[in-house]
Protein backbone atom coordinates (compact mmCIF):
# COMPACT_ATOMS: atom_id res chain seq x y z
CA UNK A 1 0.00 0.00 0.00
CA UNK A 2 1.21 3.48 -0.83
CA UNK A 3 -1.62 6.01 -0.45
CA UNK A 4 -0.71 9.61 -1.25
CA UNK A 5 -3.60 11.92 -0.52
CA UNK A 6 -3.87 15.69 -0.74
CA UNK A 7 -6.77 17.33 1.10
CA UNK A 8 -7.46 20.93 0.20
CA UNK A 9 -9.97 23.67 0.85
CA UNK A 10 -10.52 26.94 2.73
CA UNK A 11 -9.03 27.43 6.16
CA UNK A 12 -11.71 26.48 8.70
CA UNK A 13 -13.21 23.62 6.68
CA UNK A 14 -11.24 21.08 8.66
CA UNK A 15 -8.99 19.64 5.97
CA UNK A 16 -6.04 19.59 8.38
CA UNK A 17 -8.15 17.70 10.91
CA UNK A 18 -9.29 14.92 8.58
CA UNK A 19 -5.69 14.61 7.39
CA UNK A 20 -4.49 14.21 10.97
CA UNK A 21 -7.24 11.69 11.81
CA UNK A 22 -6.33 9.57 8.80
CA UNK A 23 -2.59 9.80 9.57
CA UNK A 24 -3.09 8.96 13.24
CA UNK A 25 -5.35 6.02 12.33
CA UNK A 26 -2.81 4.74 9.83
CA UNK A 27 -0.08 4.90 12.47
CA UNK A 28 -2.24 2.96 14.92
CA UNK A 29 -2.76 0.27 12.29
CA UNK A 30 0.99 -0.13 11.88
CA UNK A 31 1.42 1.82 8.65
CA UNK A 32 4.31 4.19 7.90
CA UNK A 33 2.79 7.67 7.83
CA UNK A 34 3.48 11.37 7.38
CA UNK A 35 1.35 14.53 7.53
CA UNK A 36 2.61 17.70 5.94
CA UNK A 37 0.56 20.91 6.12
CA UNK A 38 0.81 23.94 3.91
CA UNK A 39 1.88 26.86 6.02
CA UNK A 40 2.22 30.51 5.29
CA UNK A 41 0.88 33.94 6.11
CA UNK A 42 -2.62 32.46 5.92
CA UNK A 43 -5.76 32.96 7.94
CA UNK A 44 -9.31 31.66 8.22
CA UNK A 45 -10.82 31.79 4.77
CA UNK A 46 -7.43 31.45 3.08
CA UNK A 47 -6.40 28.27 1.33
CA UNK A 48 -5.26 25.28 3.35
CA UNK A 49 -4.04 21.86 2.35
CA UNK A 50 -2.19 18.89 3.74
CA UNK A 51 -0.30 15.97 2.25
CA UNK A 52 -0.94 12.60 3.88
CA UNK A 53 1.02 9.44 3.12
CA UNK A 54 0.10 5.95 4.37
CA UNK A 55 2.52 3.30 3.23
CA UNK A 56 3.83 -0.18 3.94
CA UNK A 57 7.38 1.02 3.26
CA UNK A 58 9.11 3.92 5.04
CA UNK A 59 7.98 7.29 3.69
CA UNK A 60 10.72 8.94 1.64
CA UNK A 61 9.54 12.41 0.66
CA UNK A 62 6.50 13.66 2.59
CA UNK A 63 5.82 16.09 -0.26
CA UNK A 64 3.34 14.65 -2.74
CA UNK A 65 4.01 15.37 -6.41
CA UNK A 66 2.00 12.37 -7.65
CA UNK A 67 -1.21 11.92 -5.67
CA UNK A 68 -3.22 8.69 -5.64
CA UNK A 69 -6.27 10.64 -4.39
CA UNK A 70 -7.23 14.25 -3.76
CA UNK A 71 -10.08 15.57 -1.61
CA UNK A 72 -11.29 18.94 -2.88
CA UNK A 73 -13.35 21.31 -0.75
CA UNK A 74 -13.29 24.51 -2.83
CA UNK A 75 -12.83 25.79 -6.41
CA UNK A 76 -9.23 27.08 -6.24
CA UNK A 77 -8.00 23.73 -4.83
CA UNK A 78 -9.31 21.78 -7.82
CA UNK A 79 -7.29 23.81 -10.32
CA UNK A 80 -4.23 23.61 -8.15
CA UNK A 81 -4.18 19.87 -7.44
CA UNK A 82 -5.99 18.21 -10.37
CA UNK A 83 -2.73 18.04 -12.40
CA UNK A 84 -0.97 16.12 -9.58
CA UNK A 85 -3.30 13.09 -9.63
CA UNK A 86 -1.86 9.93 -11.19
CA UNK A 87 -3.74 8.43 -14.16
CA UNK A 88 -6.42 6.17 -12.70
CA UNK A 89 -6.35 8.13 -9.43
CA UNK A 90 -9.40 9.42 -7.58
CA UNK A 91 -10.73 12.96 -7.17
CA UNK A 92 -13.31 13.47 -4.42
CA UNK A 93 -15.11 16.77 -4.94
CA UNK A 94 -17.41 18.54 -2.48
CA UNK A 95 -20.03 19.41 -5.11
CA UNK A 96 -21.93 21.64 -2.67
CA UNK A 97 -19.13 24.19 -2.97
CA UNK A 98 -17.21 23.29 -6.12
CA UNK A 99 -19.03 24.36 -9.28
CA UNK A 100 -16.27 23.82 -11.82
CA UNK A 101 -15.74 20.52 -13.61
CA UNK A 102 -12.75 18.19 -13.52
CA UNK A 103 -11.13 18.56 -16.94
CA UNK A 104 -9.14 15.34 -17.02
CA UNK A 105 -10.72 12.13 -18.29
CA UNK A 106 -8.04 9.69 -17.08
CA UNK A 107 -9.12 9.91 -13.42
CA UNK A 108 -12.17 8.82 -11.41
CA UNK A 109 -14.34 11.67 -10.18
CA UNK A 110 -16.71 11.34 -7.22
CA UNK A 111 -19.02 14.27 -6.54
CA UNK A 112 -20.30 14.41 -3.00
CA UNK A 113 -22.78 17.13 -1.95
CA UNK A 114 -21.10 17.19 1.45
CA UNK A 115 -22.70 20.36 2.82
CA UNK A 116 -26.24 19.21 1.97
CA UNK A 117 -25.58 15.78 3.47
CA UNK A 118 -24.15 17.42 6.59
CA UNK A 119 -27.21 19.62 7.07
CA UNK A 120 -29.38 16.52 6.66
CA UNK A 121 -27.47 15.02 9.60
CA UNK A 122 -28.11 18.16 11.65
CA UNK A 123 -24.63 19.70 11.62
CA UNK A 124 -23.15 22.09 9.07
CA UNK A 125 -19.70 21.51 10.55
CA UNK A 126 -19.03 18.01 9.25
CA UNK A 127 -18.65 18.20 5.45
CA UNK A 128 -14.98 17.35 6.04
CA UNK A 129 -15.96 14.10 7.80
CA UNK A 130 -18.32 13.21 4.94
CA UNK A 131 -15.49 13.73 2.45
CA UNK A 132 -13.20 11.56 4.59
CA UNK A 133 -15.91 8.88 4.57
CA UNK A 134 -16.21 9.09 0.79
CA UNK A 135 -12.46 8.55 0.49
CA UNK A 136 -12.58 5.61 2.92
CA UNK A 137 -15.42 3.99 0.95
CA UNK A 138 -13.07 3.67 -2.03
CA UNK A 139 -9.90 3.20 0.00
CA UNK A 140 -10.67 1.31 3.21
CA UNK A 141 -7.11 1.81 4.47
CA UNK A 142 -8.15 2.16 8.11
CA UNK A 143 -11.11 0.70 9.99
CA UNK A 144 -13.98 2.66 11.52
CA UNK A 145 -13.02 1.22 14.91
CA UNK A 146 -9.52 2.68 14.62
CA UNK A 147 -10.90 6.02 13.48
CA UNK A 148 -13.30 6.04 16.44
CA UNK A 149 -10.52 5.29 18.92
CA UNK A 150 -8.36 8.05 17.42
CA UNK A 151 -11.23 10.53 17.75
CA UNK A 152 -11.68 9.48 21.36
CA UNK A 153 -8.01 10.15 21.99
CA UNK A 154 -7.73 13.46 20.14
CA UNK A 155 -11.16 14.95 20.89
CA UNK A 156 -11.33 15.10 24.66
CA UNK A 157 -13.15 17.30 27.18
CA UNK A 158 -15.85 19.45 25.61
CA UNK A 159 -14.95 18.16 22.15
CA UNK A 160 -15.85 14.57 23.11
CA UNK A 161 -19.53 15.42 22.70
CA UNK A 162 -18.95 15.86 18.96
CA UNK A 163 -17.51 12.40 18.34
CA UNK A 164 -20.86 10.74 17.51
CA UNK A 165 -21.86 13.38 14.95
CA UNK A 166 -18.40 13.27 13.38
CA UNK A 167 -18.57 9.49 13.10
CA UNK A 168 -22.06 9.73 11.61
CA UNK A 169 -20.59 12.09 9.00
CA UNK A 170 -17.88 9.59 8.06
CA UNK A 171 -20.50 6.84 7.80
CA UNK A 172 -22.73 9.10 5.66
CA UNK A 173 -19.82 9.63 3.24
CA UNK A 174 -19.20 5.88 3.02
CA UNK A 175 -22.90 5.16 2.46
CA UNK A 176 -23.21 7.88 -0.18
CA UNK A 177 -20.40 6.41 -2.29
CA UNK A 178 -21.63 2.82 -1.80
CA UNK A 179 -25.17 3.64 -2.99
CA UNK A 180 -24.01 5.34 -6.21
CA UNK A 181 -21.93 2.44 -7.49
Amino acid at each position, binding site marked *: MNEKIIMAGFGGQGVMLIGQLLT*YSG*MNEGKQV*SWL*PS*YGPEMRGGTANCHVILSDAPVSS*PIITKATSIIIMNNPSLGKFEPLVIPGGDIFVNSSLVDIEVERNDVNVYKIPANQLAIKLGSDKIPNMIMLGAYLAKHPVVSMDTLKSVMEKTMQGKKAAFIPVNLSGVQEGIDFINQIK
Partner: protein
Amino acid sequence: MTKKLMKGNEVIGEAAINGGCRYFFGYPITPQNEVPEYLSKRLPEVGGMFVQAESEIAAINMVYGAAGSGARAMTSSSSPGIALKQEGISYIAGAMLPCVIVNMVRGGPGLGGIQPSQCDYFQATRGGGNGDYRLIVYAPNNLQETADIMSEAFETSDYYRVPVMILGDGMIGQMMEPVEITPPKKKRNLPAKDWATTGTDGKRKPNIINSLYLNPAQLEEHNLKLEKIYEDIKANEVRYEAYNVEDADVVCVAYGTTSRIVKSAIMECEEEGLKVGLIRPITLWPYPDEAFDKIKKDCKGLLCVEMSLGQMIDDVKIAANGRWKSYFYGRTGGMIPEPEDIKNEIKKIIRGEK
Protein backbone atom coordinates in the same frame (compact mmCIF):
# COMPACT_ATOMS: atom_id res chain seq x y z
CA MET B 1 6.35 4.62 25.68
CA THR B 2 4.48 4.07 22.45
CA LYS B 3 4.76 6.16 19.32
CA LYS B 4 2.96 9.48 19.23
CA LEU B 5 2.02 11.52 16.19
CA MET B 6 3.83 14.81 16.80
CA LYS B 7 4.64 18.03 14.97
CA GLY B 8 8.37 18.63 14.36
CA ASN B 9 8.60 21.81 16.41
CA GLU B 10 6.90 20.06 19.34
CA VAL B 11 9.32 17.15 19.00
CA ILE B 12 12.19 19.65 19.38
CA GLY B 13 10.58 20.96 22.57
CA GLU B 14 9.79 17.61 24.18
CA ALA B 15 13.13 16.07 23.21
CA ALA B 16 14.97 19.10 24.66
CA ILE B 17 13.29 18.46 28.02
CA ASN B 18 14.10 14.78 27.64
CA GLY B 19 17.74 15.77 27.11
CA GLY B 20 17.79 17.74 30.37
CA CYS B 21 17.10 21.24 29.08
CA ARG B 22 15.37 23.39 31.69
CA TYR B 23 15.85 26.91 30.32
CA PHE B 24 14.64 28.39 27.05
CA PHE B 25 15.16 31.95 25.87
CA GLY B 26 13.79 33.06 22.53
CA TYR B 27 11.96 35.56 20.40
CA PRO B 28 9.13 34.59 18.01
CA ILE B 29 9.68 33.99 14.31
CA THR B 30 8.01 31.74 11.72
CA PRO B 31 8.43 28.79 11.07
CA GLN B 32 9.63 27.73 14.53
CA ASN B 33 6.97 29.34 16.76
CA GLU B 34 5.62 26.02 18.05
CA VAL B 35 8.99 25.42 19.76
CA PRO B 36 8.63 28.33 22.23
CA GLU B 37 4.87 27.79 22.39
CA TYR B 38 5.35 24.18 23.47
CA LEU B 39 8.18 24.92 25.90
CA SER B 40 6.33 27.85 27.50
CA LYS B 41 3.76 25.30 28.64
CA ARG B 42 6.04 22.34 29.37
CA LEU B 43 9.12 23.88 31.03
CA PRO B 44 7.29 25.14 34.13
CA GLU B 45 5.82 21.64 34.56
CA VAL B 46 9.33 20.16 34.93
CA GLY B 47 10.72 22.89 37.17
CA GLY B 48 12.29 24.83 34.31
CA MET B 49 11.82 28.34 33.01
CA PHE B 50 10.70 29.88 29.74
CA VAL B 51 11.55 33.48 28.91
CA GLN B 52 10.34 35.35 25.86
CA ALA B 53 13.12 37.89 25.52
CA GLU B 54 12.76 41.41 24.12
CA SER B 55 14.94 40.52 21.13
CA GLU B 56 17.05 37.76 19.62
CA ILE B 57 20.22 39.45 20.90
CA ALA B 58 18.84 39.46 24.42
CA ALA B 59 17.76 35.82 24.09
CA ILE B 60 21.19 34.49 23.08
CA ASN B 61 22.86 36.50 25.84
CA MET B 62 20.42 35.00 28.35
CA VAL B 63 21.54 31.60 27.06
CA TYR B 64 25.14 32.78 27.57
CA GLY B 65 24.35 33.67 31.19
CA ALA B 66 22.40 30.49 31.96
CA ALA B 67 25.05 28.28 30.33
CA GLY B 68 27.74 30.13 32.28
CA SER B 69 26.04 29.15 35.51
CA GLY B 70 26.12 25.51 34.42
CA ALA B 71 22.46 25.15 33.39
CA ARG B 72 21.27 23.29 30.30
CA ALA B 73 19.87 26.10 28.18
CA MET B 74 18.73 26.56 24.59
CA THR B 75 17.30 29.01 22.12
CA SER B 76 15.59 28.54 18.79
CA SER B 77 14.92 30.86 15.90
CA SER B 78 14.91 31.05 12.13
CA SER B 79 17.46 32.49 9.69
CA PRO B 80 17.32 36.28 10.25
CA GLY B 81 16.89 35.66 13.98
CA ILE B 82 19.92 33.38 14.02
CA ALA B 83 21.86 36.08 12.18
CA LEU B 84 21.10 38.44 15.07
CA LYS B 85 22.34 35.84 17.56
CA GLN B 86 25.76 35.38 15.94
CA GLU B 87 27.64 37.74 18.26
CA GLY B 88 26.39 35.81 21.26
CA ILE B 89 27.12 32.43 19.65
CA SER B 90 30.74 33.49 18.99
CA TYR B 91 31.10 34.67 22.62
CA ILE B 92 29.62 31.38 23.90
CA ALA B 93 32.02 29.40 21.70
CA GLY B 94 34.92 31.58 22.89
CA ALA B 95 33.95 31.15 26.53
CA MET B 96 33.66 27.37 26.01
CA LEU B 97 30.08 27.10 27.16
CA PRO B 98 27.66 24.31 26.24
CA CYS B 99 24.24 25.16 24.82
CA VAL B 100 21.90 24.16 21.99
CA ILE B 101 20.74 26.49 19.21
CA VAL B 102 17.94 25.47 16.82
CA ASN B 103 17.67 27.10 13.39
CA MET B 104 14.51 26.32 11.40
CA VAL B 105 15.94 27.81 8.23
CA ARG B 106 13.81 29.98 5.92
CA GLY B 107 14.58 31.63 2.63
CA GLY B 108 16.95 34.62 2.59
CA PRO B 109 18.91 36.88 2.41
CA GLY B 110 17.55 39.59 4.70
CA LEU B 111 14.06 38.91 6.01
CA GLY B 112 13.55 36.60 3.03
CA GLY B 113 10.47 34.38 3.22
CA ILE B 114 9.10 31.71 5.52
CA GLN B 115 9.18 28.61 3.31
CA PRO B 116 11.78 25.81 3.68
CA SER B 117 15.36 26.58 2.69
CA GLN B 118 18.93 25.44 3.28
CA CYS B 119 20.55 28.79 2.60
CA ASP B 120 22.17 28.98 6.06
CA TYR B 121 24.66 26.14 5.50
CA PHE B 122 27.60 28.55 5.35
CA GLN B 123 26.30 30.46 8.37
CA ALA B 124 26.08 27.23 10.38
CA THR B 125 29.27 25.48 9.29
CA ARG B 126 31.65 28.38 8.55
CA GLY B 127 30.97 30.37 11.71
CA GLY B 128 28.27 33.00 11.39
CA GLY B 129 30.09 34.96 14.07
CA ASN B 130 33.68 36.13 14.28
CA GLY B 131 36.69 34.07 15.19
CA ASP B 132 38.29 30.66 14.87
CA TYR B 133 35.44 28.55 16.20
CA ARG B 134 33.18 25.66 15.28
CA LEU B 135 29.71 24.45 16.19
CA ILE B 136 28.66 20.82 16.09
CA VAL B 137 25.90 21.00 13.45
CA TYR B 138 23.22 18.32 13.06
CA ALA B 139 20.70 18.16 10.20
CA PRO B 140 18.07 15.48 10.89
CA ASN B 141 15.78 14.47 8.03
CA ASN B 142 12.86 12.91 9.89
CA LEU B 143 11.15 13.47 13.21
CA GLN B 144 12.40 10.35 15.00
CA GLU B 145 15.95 11.35 14.15
CA THR B 146 15.17 14.91 15.28
CA ALA B 147 13.96 13.53 18.62
CA ASP B 148 17.06 11.34 19.10
CA ILE B 149 19.54 14.05 18.13
CA MET B 150 17.82 16.71 20.23
CA SER B 151 17.69 14.38 23.24
CA GLU B 152 21.47 13.82 23.02
CA ALA B 153 22.46 17.35 22.05
CA PHE B 154 22.83 18.72 25.58
CA GLU B 155 24.95 15.77 26.68
CA THR B 156 27.22 16.18 23.62
CA SER B 157 27.52 19.93 24.18
CA ASP B 158 28.33 19.47 27.89
CA TYR B 159 30.96 16.85 27.05
CA TYR B 160 32.93 19.02 24.61
CA ARG B 161 31.95 22.47 25.95
CA VAL B 162 31.08 23.38 22.36
CA PRO B 163 27.67 24.75 21.32
CA VAL B 164 25.47 22.42 19.26
CA MET B 165 23.32 23.69 16.41
CA ILE B 166 20.33 21.80 15.01
CA LEU B 167 19.48 22.77 11.47
CA GLY B 168 15.95 22.13 10.20
CA ASP B 169 13.44 24.01 8.09
CA GLY B 170 9.75 24.74 7.99
CA MET B 171 8.97 21.29 6.65
CA ILE B 172 10.71 19.50 9.53
CA GLY B 173 9.08 21.98 11.93
CA GLN B 174 5.53 21.78 10.60
CA MET B 175 5.11 18.15 9.55
CA MET B 176 3.80 15.33 11.73
CA GLU B 177 5.30 11.85 11.98
CA PRO B 178 5.20 9.05 14.55
CA VAL B 179 7.83 9.63 17.21
CA GLU B 180 8.98 7.82 20.30
CA ILE B 181 10.95 9.97 22.71
CA THR B 182 13.30 7.74 24.68
CA PRO B 183 16.16 8.52 27.10
CA PRO B 184 19.41 9.43 25.26
CA LYS B 185 21.13 6.27 24.08
CA LYS B 186 24.67 7.59 24.23
CA LYS B 187 25.60 8.23 27.85
CA ARG B 188 28.83 10.15 28.30
CA ASN B 189 31.15 10.45 31.24
CA LEU B 190 30.62 14.13 31.91
CA PRO B 191 33.26 16.12 33.79
CA ALA B 192 32.01 18.32 36.67
CA LYS B 193 31.19 21.87 35.62
CA ASP B 194 33.84 23.32 37.94
CA TRP B 195 34.09 26.36 35.69
CA ALA B 196 30.46 27.45 36.27
CA THR B 197 29.60 30.66 38.11
CA THR B 198 27.59 29.07 40.89
CA GLY B 199 28.72 31.25 43.81
CA THR B 200 31.94 30.73 45.76
CA ASP B 201 30.48 30.64 49.29
CA GLY B 202 33.84 32.25 50.15
CA LYS B 203 35.52 28.86 49.65
CA ARG B 204 37.16 29.14 46.22
CA LYS B 205 38.45 31.70 43.78
CA PRO B 206 35.68 33.21 41.65
CA ASN B 207 35.04 31.62 38.26
CA ILE B 208 35.01 34.10 35.42
CA ILE B 209 33.18 33.50 32.13
CA ASN B 210 34.99 35.46 29.47
CA SER B 211 36.12 35.43 25.86
CA LEU B 212 38.60 38.35 26.06
CA TYR B 213 42.31 37.54 25.78
CA LEU B 214 44.33 40.68 25.10
CA ASN B 215 47.67 38.89 25.25
CA PRO B 216 48.14 37.30 21.80
CA ALA B 217 50.22 34.44 23.19
CA GLN B 218 47.40 33.57 25.60
CA LEU B 219 44.77 33.88 22.89
CA GLU B 220 46.77 31.59 20.62
CA GLU B 221 47.01 29.09 23.45
CA HIS B 222 43.24 29.35 23.95
CA ASN B 223 42.60 28.91 20.21
CA LEU B 224 44.85 25.85 20.11
CA LYS B 225 42.97 24.41 23.08
CA LEU B 226 39.72 24.86 21.14
CA GLU B 227 41.32 23.35 18.03
CA LYS B 228 42.27 20.25 20.00
CA ILE B 229 38.63 19.83 21.02
CA TYR B 230 37.51 20.30 17.42
CA GLU B 231 39.95 17.60 16.27
CA ASP B 232 38.51 15.31 18.92
CA ILE B 233 34.98 16.02 17.64
CA LYS B 234 36.07 15.33 14.04
CA ALA B 235 37.45 11.97 15.13
CA ASN B 236 34.42 10.90 17.16
CA GLU B 237 31.20 12.65 16.20
CA VAL B 238 30.87 12.29 12.40
CA ARG B 239 27.45 10.90 11.46
CA TYR B 240 26.00 10.08 8.07
CA GLU B 241 23.77 7.69 6.19
CA ALA B 242 25.11 5.96 3.08
CA TYR B 243 22.73 4.28 0.64
CA ASN B 244 24.02 2.03 -2.18
CA VAL B 245 27.18 4.13 -2.49
CA GLU B 246 29.69 1.38 -3.47
CA ASP B 247 27.90 0.30 -6.62
CA ALA B 248 26.48 3.61 -7.86
CA ASP B 249 27.11 5.27 -11.22
CA VAL B 250 25.94 8.55 -9.71
CA VAL B 251 26.11 9.40 -6.01
CA CYS B 252 23.75 12.10 -4.76
CA VAL B 253 24.68 14.14 -1.71
CA ALA B 254 21.90 15.84 0.23
CA TYR B 255 20.91 16.56 3.82
CA GLY B 256 17.75 17.29 5.80
CA THR B 257 14.46 17.74 3.95
CA THR B 258 16.16 17.63 0.54
CA SER B 259 17.63 14.18 1.22
CA ARG B 260 14.10 12.74 1.44
CA ILE B 261 13.12 14.19 -1.93
CA VAL B 262 16.39 12.90 -3.40
CA LYS B 263 15.61 9.45 -1.94
CA SER B 264 12.26 9.49 -3.79
CA ALA B 265 14.07 10.39 -7.01
CA ILE B 266 16.62 7.60 -6.43
CA MET B 267 13.88 5.03 -5.91
CA GLU B 268 12.27 6.07 -9.20
CA CYS B 269 15.69 5.76 -10.90
CA GLU B 270 16.06 2.24 -9.48
CA GLU B 271 12.75 1.24 -11.06
CA GLU B 272 14.34 2.19 -14.38
CA GLY B 273 17.41 0.05 -13.61
CA LEU B 274 19.79 2.92 -12.83
CA LYS B 275 22.36 2.61 -10.06
CA VAL B 276 22.21 5.72 -7.91
CA GLY B 277 23.52 6.13 -4.37
CA LEU B 278 23.06 8.68 -1.62
CA ILE B 279 25.37 10.16 0.97
CA ARG B 280 23.35 11.98 3.60
CA PRO B 281 25.45 13.95 6.08
CA ILE B 282 23.74 13.98 9.48
CA THR B 283 26.54 16.10 10.95
CA LEU B 284 27.24 19.04 8.64
CA TRP B 285 30.20 19.83 10.86
CA PRO B 286 32.17 17.68 11.29
CA TYR B 287 31.61 16.77 7.63
CA PRO B 288 31.55 13.04 6.77
CA ASP B 289 34.51 13.05 4.33
CA GLU B 290 35.05 9.34 5.02
CA ALA B 291 31.68 8.45 3.45
CA PHE B 292 33.07 9.39 0.03
CA ASP B 293 35.92 6.85 0.22
CA LYS B 294 33.49 4.02 -0.59
CA ILE B 295 32.48 5.47 -3.96
CA LYS B 296 33.83 3.40 -6.88
CA LYS B 297 36.62 4.85 -9.03
CA ASP B 298 34.64 5.02 -12.26
CA CYS B 299 31.54 6.63 -10.72
CA LYS B 300 30.31 9.14 -13.29
CA GLY B 301 29.82 11.98 -10.86
CA LEU B 302 28.47 13.36 -7.62
CA LEU B 303 25.23 15.34 -7.60
CA CYS B 304 24.84 17.72 -4.66
CA VAL B 305 21.21 18.77 -4.23
CA GLU B 306 20.33 21.64 -1.92
CA MET B 307 17.62 24.18 -1.27
CA SER B 308 20.15 26.93 -1.91
CA LEU B 309 22.25 28.13 -4.82
CA GLY B 310 25.12 25.86 -3.79
CA GLN B 311 26.73 25.91 -0.36
CA MET B 312 27.35 22.32 0.76
CA ILE B 313 28.77 21.70 -2.73
CA ASP B 314 32.03 23.23 -1.41
CA ASP B 315 32.31 20.47 1.20
CA VAL B 316 31.37 17.84 -1.40
CA LYS B 317 34.28 19.03 -3.56
CA ILE B 318 36.66 19.00 -0.59
CA ALA B 319 35.57 15.45 0.28
CA ALA B 320 35.77 14.31 -3.37
CA ASN B 321 39.27 15.80 -3.55
CA GLY B 322 39.32 15.67 -7.33
CA ARG B 323 38.47 11.97 -7.52
CA TRP B 324 35.09 12.51 -9.22
CA LYS B 325 33.34 15.42 -10.88
CA SER B 326 30.91 17.27 -8.64
CA TYR B 327 27.67 18.68 -10.02
CA PHE B 328 25.00 20.81 -8.39
CA TYR B 329 21.25 21.15 -8.56
CA GLY B 330 19.29 23.45 -6.30
CA ARG B 331 16.14 25.48 -5.82
CA THR B 332 16.06 28.54 -3.63
CA GLY B 333 13.88 31.16 -1.99
CA GLY B 334 11.56 28.58 -0.44
CA MET B 335 10.99 26.58 -3.62
CA ILE B 336 11.37 22.83 -3.17
CA PRO B 337 13.16 20.61 -5.71
CA GLU B 338 10.91 18.00 -7.32
CA PRO B 339 11.93 14.33 -7.70
CA GLU B 340 11.35 14.56 -11.46
CA ASP B 341 13.88 17.40 -11.86
CA ILE B 342 16.47 15.60 -9.71
CA LYS B 343 15.94 12.46 -11.81
CA ASN B 344 16.65 14.45 -14.96
CA GLU B 345 19.91 15.78 -13.49
CA ILE B 346 20.97 12.25 -12.52
CA LYS B 347 20.25 11.00 -16.04
CA LYS B 348 22.20 13.87 -17.61
CA ILE B 349 25.27 12.82 -15.60
CA ILE B 350 24.83 9.16 -16.58
CA ARG B 351 24.52 10.15 -20.27
CA GLY B 352 27.55 12.43 -19.97
CA GLU B 353 25.53 15.53 -20.84
CA LYS B 354 26.52 17.63 -17.85
